[in-house]
């Protein structure tokens, strides 16, 4: 792993964001809107639901953390799509940079894009709704890391699709997370799902992560086993994502799509 190359590729995305105010505003706008929307919904449920009684901010905290996952994945996809849209794909893939370095650069830069949007929204939630995700305490670091790894994994799988099927796969990039949201049990406990769906849900790290968030906020208890389980599952999915990416890259070389990507 050559860090100066990873830095070089990260720099490309840093310059892109830095040079465009609309891009920065776009990154901040959507998470902020989410906070407003879920903030009011959260307020309503706090008053009207016995489950959420006296647990102000459970839904809003889940919304913020889900948005973190969403932004991580979209950031990863967006950076890859930027290369396709700018028709820079061939230049990138003939540069002496390894696939592992490209993945590392995009993974590290995605956190930067994600935080640009999420930090203001998270801070906004404190005075507006009296909700701070920092109330989760130390486990927040592990939960965010797991969500980030899983978000990047989804990004990897979508970019694998982009390499395999070309820019037409772009729509799947936007839809991928909405597909997983109902199974992730972000806003409700897993028991709400029919039993057969619970089985599928349990193989996703999201369920374990969001169940634990509710456990911490509602029961004021920390179950490190759940946190560990979510993290291990996210890492396993990440490894799977990397393998799929390599397979897609090899397939793209076979089909010759790398040279025409973006046209």
């Amino acid at each position, binding site marked *: 792993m050559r860090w100066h*190359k990873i830095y070089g590729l990260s720099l490309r995305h840093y310059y*892109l964001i830095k040079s465009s105010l609309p891009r920065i505003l776009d990154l901040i706008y959507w998470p902020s809107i989410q906070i407003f929307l879920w903030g009011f919904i959260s307020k309503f449920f706090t008053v009207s639901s016995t489950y959420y009684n006296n647990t102000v901010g459970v839904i809003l905290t889940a919304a913020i953390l889900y948005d973190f996952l969403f932004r991580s994945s979209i950031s990863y996809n967006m950076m890859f799509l930027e290369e396709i849209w700018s028709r820079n794909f*061939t230049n990138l893939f*003939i540069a002496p*940079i*390894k696939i592992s370095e490209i993945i590392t650069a995009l993974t590290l830069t995605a956190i930067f894009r994600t935080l640009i949007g999420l930090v203001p929204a998270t801070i906004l939630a404190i005075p507006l709704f009296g909700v701070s995700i920092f109330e989760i305490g130390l486990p927040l670091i592990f939960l965010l890391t797991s969500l980030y790894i899983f978000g990047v994994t989804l990004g990897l799988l979508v970019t694998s699709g982009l390499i395999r099927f070309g820019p037409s796969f772009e729509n799947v990039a936007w839809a991928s997370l909405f597909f997983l949201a109902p199974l992730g049990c972000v806003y409700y406990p897993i028991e709400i799902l029919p039993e057969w769906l619970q089985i599928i849900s349990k193989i996703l790290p999201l369920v374990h992560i969001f169940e634990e968030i509710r456990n911490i906020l509602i029961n004021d208890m920390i179950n490190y086993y759940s946190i560990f389980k979510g993290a291990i599952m996210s890492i396993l999915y990440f490894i799977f994502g990397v393998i799929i990416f390599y397979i897609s890259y090899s397939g793209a070389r076979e089909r010759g799509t*790398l040279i025409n990507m973006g046209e």
Partner: protein
Amino acid sequence: MKLEVNKLSKKFNDTDAVKNITFLIEKNKTLGLLGPNGCGKTTSIGMMLGLIKPTSGNVYIDGKDINKSQKSSLLSLINFASPYVELPKKLTVRQNLEVYGRLYGVKNLEERIIEISEDLNLFFYLNKKTGELSSGQKNRVSLAKSLINKPKLLFLDEPTASLDPDIGDFVRNYIEEYKKKNELTILLASHNMKEVERLCDTVIMMKEGKIVDKGTCKELIEKHGRNNLEETFLKIARSKNEVA
């Protein structure tokens, strides 16, 4: 660097895009790759750059197979420019050159950026966004990117396509001058026959995925009894599928 292509073939499903091509470019020589659209030039270049996996055959760069050796270390000595491959438009010229300079591990990068931008009359555009440049300026930025790492082997795909005669001539002059001062092997794919006559030591003619003729420009013109390379190209392109 010496480029050796040995029995290279590529099949996409049932289509033979490149059929068993073999050629050699000696160190510091320029080879022109000619042929009508769809004859397999881009696929061949893709395989030489390691972007496309050959169905069979090998590409050796200084004796090392690009598909088997340390690809990354070979690629650091190679580069490519084409008007059909762009650089990020929202980045300034300087930022693009910096990013690629870092990817290619260029030492004294700032000095190199200044040097190449002065050589290619881009110095005053360094802080301008690449997307705001004229096509002639963009073309020179693409050339600057392709030379940022002082490559030993350069692939140029129609480097003067869509340029006005003045800028086209500037680019050709620059390539000639650069080659005199630096150790550089070039593979040039072009539809501009005058450019090929001026820059190339030898020429390969491709048609329907095969090499149908090769030699120096003079040899080919004489062999086909024509007055110039353009007429020779037309004769070969319009002839039946015989291999010379």
